[in-house]
């Protein structure tokens, strides 16, 4: 596909003032002088071996290979930061939204349900950067409770790290909880309409037992789907939030690479995002299959 725009990449990366020699040198070192499929094959083989290639940004400086920055070395620390944030969000958001969703489903039509419904509908309608900047304005600028930006260095300790991601964490939790809670509520309501739930009630079972003993064993598949879907969304949605709070994660790295059209870095980030996304969805499917009683106990 890069064939479509040959000189463009060199120009975009090196700037319009670059001499033809520099452009040629860049193209040769980036492998852009070779056919597309060969390049793609070489890259893919590299990825399988853990080699994501070399960033274009390091090709501009010198013509030798001394100071090459590999994509892997750029991505790894960033990936660590992103996973730290995502994991923190997941730990807070998953129990919170499952609990809220369950409550809203149980007390469907109540004031609580309606308030939560309106609140979550509003929250999913807001762009992440809107929530992010509101939080920053109120809780970092006007009330200095949190760090406005989340600078992380290699010397930052675990607790310090946690403290610095306060605002991005809250922002992502707000977004994710809204989505996940609505989906949980729908899944539970769907389940509670089953005849076997009515039967359990007619057998004299109290609501708590109906939920824990009758509904929940059948709810793992839909809940796993909801959680998987939202965690996958979280990993992707993190991009905007990282930019808002200047958090050094893989999302911001990717955006910067897109702006400078540093293709190897973009590719590397994309493949990692895609892998996490596919992995999460796949695990949701597997949990759904594994917990289905019909498949657990075949005829």
């Amino acid at each position, binding site marked *: 596909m890069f064939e479509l725009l040959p000189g463009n990449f060199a120009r975009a990366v090196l700037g319009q003032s670059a001499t033809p020699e520099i452009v040629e040198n860049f193209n040769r070192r980036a492998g852009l002088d070779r056919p597309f499929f060969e390049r793609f094959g070489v890259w893919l083989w590299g990825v399988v071996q853990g080699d994501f290639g070399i960033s274009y940004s390091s090709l501009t400086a010198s013509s030798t290979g001394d100071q090459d920055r590999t994509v892997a070395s750029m991505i790894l620390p960033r990936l660590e930061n992103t996973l730290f944030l995502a994991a923190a969000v997941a730990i807070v958001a998953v129990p919170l939204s499952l609990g809220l969703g369950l409550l809203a489903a149980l007390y469907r039509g109540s004031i609580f349900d309606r308030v939560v419904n309106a609140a979550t509908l509003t929250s999913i309608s807001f762009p992440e950067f809107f929530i992010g900047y509101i939080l920053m304005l109120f809780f970092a600028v006007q009330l200095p409770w949190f760090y406005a930006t989340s600078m992380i260095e290699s010397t930052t300790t675990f607790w310090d790290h946690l403290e610095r991601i306060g605002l991005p964490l809250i922002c992502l939790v707000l977004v994710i909880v809204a989505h996940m809670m609505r989906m949980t509520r729908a899944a539970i309501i769907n389940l509670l309409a*089953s*005849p*076997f739930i*009515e*039967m*359990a*009630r*007619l*057998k*004299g*079972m*109290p609501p708590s*037992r109906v939920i824990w003993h*009758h509904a929940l*064993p*059948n709810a793992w598949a839909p809940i796993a789907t909801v959680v998987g879907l939202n965690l996958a969304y979280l990993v992707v949605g993190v991009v905007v939030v990282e930019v808002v709070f200047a958090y050094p994660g893989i999302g911001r790295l990717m955006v910067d690479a897109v702006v400078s059209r540093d293709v190897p870095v973009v590719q590397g980030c994309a493949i990692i995002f895609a892998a996490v996304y596919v992995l999460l969805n796949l695990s949701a499917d597997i949990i759904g299959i594994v917990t289905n*009683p*019909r498949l657990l*106990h075949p*005829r």
Partner: protein
Amino acid sequence: MLLEMRGIEIEGQSEDTWFPIIKGMDLTLRRGEVLGLIGESGAGKSTMGLAAMGFARDGCRITAGSIVFDGMDLRAMPESQRRKLRGVRIAYVAQSAAASFNPAHRLIDQCIETAMFYGVASASEARQSTVDLFRRLHLPDPENIGERYPHQVSGGQLQRVMTAMAMACSPDLIVFDEPTTALDVTTQIEVLASIKEVVRELHKAAIYITHDLAVVAQMADRIMVLRYGEVVEEAPTRQMLSDPQEAYTKSLWAVRSLRKDEDTSGDKVLSIRNVTAAYGGGVRVLHDVTVEVPRGRTVAVVGESGSGKSTLARVITGLLPPISGTVEFDGQRLPPALAQRPKSLLRKVQMIYQMPDPALNPKRRIGDMLGRAVSYHLGLSGKARDKRISELLEMIELDDSYRERLPMELSGGQKQRVCIARALAVEPDLVICDEVTSALDQIVAEEILKLLLRLQRDLGVTYLYITHDIATVKAIADEIVVMHQGKVVESGPKSEVLSPPHPAYTELLLSSVPEMDPDWLDNVLAERARGGAGAAAVEGDR
């Protein structure tokens, strides 16, 4: 008096308004008595049955009346009190056992759940008594069947397990809500027999809800007829059957009296020869089926679910090309697949479906639907088209204003009439009727059958009538084809097929159809116990 319900009023919510479902109803029940609740859809039978447990479905509410069970007013007590009665002293058996068992738990655990939860019995006692109930209900392998999960057990067996579950705490009252409606007749008789036996022997009181008169005649000591949320009539079973008082009850009773004189003359309009068919190259659903249909007559194809009778219709219409065998129409061999058939041939074979609702496009007006068929196949337009639509509406006894209506503005019976008009609009030779009355209430069904018979007399159209209901067959057939597991068991003129001697399956099928005689079930069981025909087949099913 075990149960006394007075002045019960129940409302149901539709969109934002509340509609009355039960409009001031009384119901009383003595210990050991079985009360039959009978009525058509929307009569409020199930709602009333659940109200006997002090329960209202989501979207329903009990607004007035008292429910006194064994001296306790269920409406006056808090929900937690009522809950302790449910399952322990008042139990419920639902229509669809397959949907009402929790797929995640073993049957035995579900059966003993209430007993364990309220400490009625210890685990081993509860298990033992449940296994006894399984045995009483003639379930196969009573010791171990409880270890299975719901989807591992057949429908008829599951219904019996549900009965056992209801009786696990030895309740005083059991509410049976159409427990056999979803079953085939040959399975139904077994379940009916088991329920009747166990209720009688353990001397339980029961409310038995059904829309089937013959079924209720077997099960109940006393019958209450409901309509539009009110009691029409109430009397002991024998008196109710022999001497109904109200006009509505009499009309219900009269439904099964429709008869048609047999006439099997006429040249063959349709010949199905040695057809074998399968879905998706898998299991064969039709084996070497041969059926001949005389012009202007009605051939009834009778069979239970899985007999292949609907597949036969798909082969005739070309939706399912057969693996081997031929379908001849008017002496001409029909191309096997729908796509290969010319428009002129498509016109000649029409179809009417079981459910009128999914058979009519909800977004198209009646006149538009009929008009499309008329102009597409007969090439009529303008005034001629309008005139034909009017004729068709007249034919189905609807006035001309109906052409502007949408399907949702029609009642169920009217919708089925429109389906008939659409089929007849293009002047077909053969109409395939696929269970066209089984989704309708009995009185409406009767009217539809009368209409079909009149149209046959007037227009000379041929029917291939697919059904599982023997009463309908008696009403309209000239010839009968009995199908079982994809094979034709017996075929011939109605009088021959319905009179002995029968092949074993026909015997079993015919003897399993409930009759209005309250002694019917006992007599059949006695007969079968003596080793009459079909007994072997029934045992095999167990």
